[in-house]
């Protein structure tokens, strides 16, 4: 058992507790409040004067799959041999020894959703994992956690421009994506009727098989889109097929905010600090997240690690506040909102009794540029402790 005492607790859900205590047992938060009784055998961490928040959740990071400090040898996020590869699984490409996991822990990031890259229209399944461990299977919270898809420049650059293959245009991308969805739907329908005794089952197809949960709305399609029209295309196709879906990046979201609000689309916004590496992210800045937040669109921030190093996720939220975002909302956008985006809010993202004991003790205001994660705890275990 572990007790964090005398803490300025910011649970994200519910009011802050000044001078509070959090009790952790079996990897879960078992008590939290002003004065819960601390068992005598508990290991005590004194957080006097320091802020404690839930562990930070990064909703879209290629950690472990696009490794730091390596060339093509560590690059395993884009299977660029075919624009439609739903049968890829990010879990099979993750190296838990990627040094970025350590940086994440040092920065207070305890959970990450890891999707494949965006070179492919349909890239494969994402997973959500804890940022500590040696064996990826032991780190998993949710797998699969959505199917990665992409619109806009990346697929048409990877195929049309570099390989003279489809897709070469945005409409080509949309058509291919639709085709994949239609084909999977037909496959799923046939299989279903065969199971009901009507006709033969279709012959096995790995891609269609992987798409079945998507087409049935059981798993979200997570669609990479920057430009406003790409965002709209993503919504158009998803609504057409009645999919569960999220949008990733949403760089020009400010222009279509009412559409996103109308459909209550979950958006992971970022990497907002990125440079203008391509035409479609020309307008990246904090207008999109501010507009989405104001309109009540469910949104969270992402660094798209390693595009911006994941450790700068809290700093991103801080800059958003300097642009005018409400502080609580900004903090929520890197904790609970990210957890909701990733589909794991039942376990992480806020400090509540019964939730995973993922928390961070900060040296100061967690969103300020100069603040450290002094202690990072995942599943009740201290995974980082800053040496002062």
């Amino acid at each position, binding site marked *: 058992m572990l007790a964090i005492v005398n803490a300025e607790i910011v649970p994200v859900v519910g009011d802050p507790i000044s001078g509070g205590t959090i009790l952790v047992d079996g990897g879960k938060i078992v008590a939290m409040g002003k004065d819960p009784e601390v068992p005598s055998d508990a290991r005590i961490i004194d957080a006097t004067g320091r802020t404690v928040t839930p562990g930070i959740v990064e909703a879209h990071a290629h950690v472990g799959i696009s490794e730091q400090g390596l060339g093509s040898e560590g690059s395993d996020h884009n299977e660029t041999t075919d624009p439609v590869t739903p049968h890829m699984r990010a879990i099979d490409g993750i190296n838990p020894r990627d040094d970025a996991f350590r940086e994440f822990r040092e920065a207070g990031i305890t959970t990450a959703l890891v999707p494949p890259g965006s070179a492919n229209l349909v890239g494969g399944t994402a997973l959500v994992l804890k940022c500590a461990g040696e064996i990826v299977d032991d780190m998993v919270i949710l797998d699969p956690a959505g199917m990665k898809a992409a619109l806009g420049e990346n697929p048409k*650059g990877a195929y049309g421009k570099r390989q003279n293959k489809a897709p070469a*245009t945005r*409409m080509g991308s*949309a058509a291919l994506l*639709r*085709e994949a969805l239609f084909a999977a739907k037909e496959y799923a329908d046939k299989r279903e009727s065969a199971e009901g005794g009507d006709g033969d089952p279709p012959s096995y197809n790995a891609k269609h098989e992987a798409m079945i949960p998507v087409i049935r709305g059981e798993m979200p399609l997570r669609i990479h889109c920057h430009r406003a*029209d790409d965002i709209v295309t993503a919504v158009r196709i998803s609504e057409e097929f009645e999919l569960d879906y999220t949008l990733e990046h949403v760089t020009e979201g400010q222009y279509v905010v009412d559409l996103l609000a109308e459909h209550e689309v979950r958006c992971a916004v970022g990497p907002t600090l990125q440079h203008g590496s391509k*035409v479609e992210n020309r307008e990246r800045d904090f207008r999109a997240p501010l507009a989405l937040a104001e309109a009540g669109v469910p949104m969270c921030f992402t660094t798209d690690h390693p595009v911006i190093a994941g450790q700068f996720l809290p700093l991103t939220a801080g800059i958003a506040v300097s642009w005018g975002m409400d502080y609580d909302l900004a903090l929520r956008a890197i904790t609970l909102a990210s957890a909701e985006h990733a589909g794991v809010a039942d376990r992480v993202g806020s400090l509540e009794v019964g939730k995973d004991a993922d928390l961070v003790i900060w040296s100061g205001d967690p969103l300020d540029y100069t603040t450290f994660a002094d202690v990072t705890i995942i599943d009740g275990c201290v995974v980082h402790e800053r040496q002062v």
Partner: protein
Amino acid sequence: MLAIRNALIHTGTGETISGGSILMRDGRILDVGGGLDIPSEADILDAAGAYLTPGLVEAHGHVGLADEGVGWEGDDVNERVDPVTPHVSALDGINPRDRGFEDFLAGGITSVQIKPGSANVLGGSTVAAKTGMQATADRMIINPNTGMKAALGENPKRAHGAEHNRAPYTRMGSAAIMRDWLFRAREYLKKREQKDPKVGYDAKLEALLPVVRGEVPLRIHCHRADDMLTAIRIAEELDVLYTLEHATAGFKIAGYLAARGVRCAVGPSMSREAKVELEGVGFETAAAFEKHGVPYCLTTDHPVVRAMYLHMIAGKASAAGVGDEGALASVTLRAAEHVGIADRVGSLETGKDADMVIWNGDPLDGRSTPRAVIIDGEIVHRGR
């Protein structure tokens, strides 16, 4: 409610009303005429005797698919990796924030048919849209599927045969591909209707179903007379609806086209003979079509010619023999008929969309510009 009074109204149906008024509400035209009673609650715009025409209709443009002033990243006109891509739709490539739309408004164009390019034999679905920029393309759409873009002549054989060493290499090759896919679509339709279990979903054939069912036309890019005749031959053989796009050498076969009532979108007549098949490009075809009674309209093929010059093109056609009335009709009502949206736009009539332009001079004078452009009853552009 908005009322414009004291205008020199060209209704687009051949009628001219001087000192006329027009009333609109909820995006629709309530009434047009001289001496209308203007309700007291209406906002009034005094045209001071200026020309008022229907909003112009561009029957063939690529706006939104090729962003102005951007490189390959914003170029989504041609899915040129395969000569047969009927399953793509212009709707999915349109960037409603393309500055090209401003060109349309600057030229008094309120509706446009947006098409995929002509690199492919079967290029994808076309859409009809309003040009007032909205946050999403979907909100600009009048009709999300106005036809299937097709192409004959030089472009497909250059984009595939010459550049990538694959079919089509020749005009006969293009024709064969078009025929093949239309036959297969017909077959697919039959089998799907019979629920043949051996025939699975096919995105390309699926996209061709509206064509073979006769619901939407093939819109066939063709310049040379022989390409136009090939287009007609194939379309009639398969018994599908069709229109001809560009029809550059149409003056050579105007009688033949008139006899069949073939709809043609003519242009861009202000361009040059940029390739061999454009020989004779100019206003002779418009004049011949007017004379023979071919149902035609004029187009800029934006961005080949900037859309803002559509009314200048109409003026030039008028001078070349079309006459003012025919010229104006060919960029308004006839263009709307070509696209299949004449029930809503193209003329100033009660019940139609309130799309119109107040000009600072004769609209057929290229130097005139819109003083105000109105779409769905709202002023969306103001000029000098």
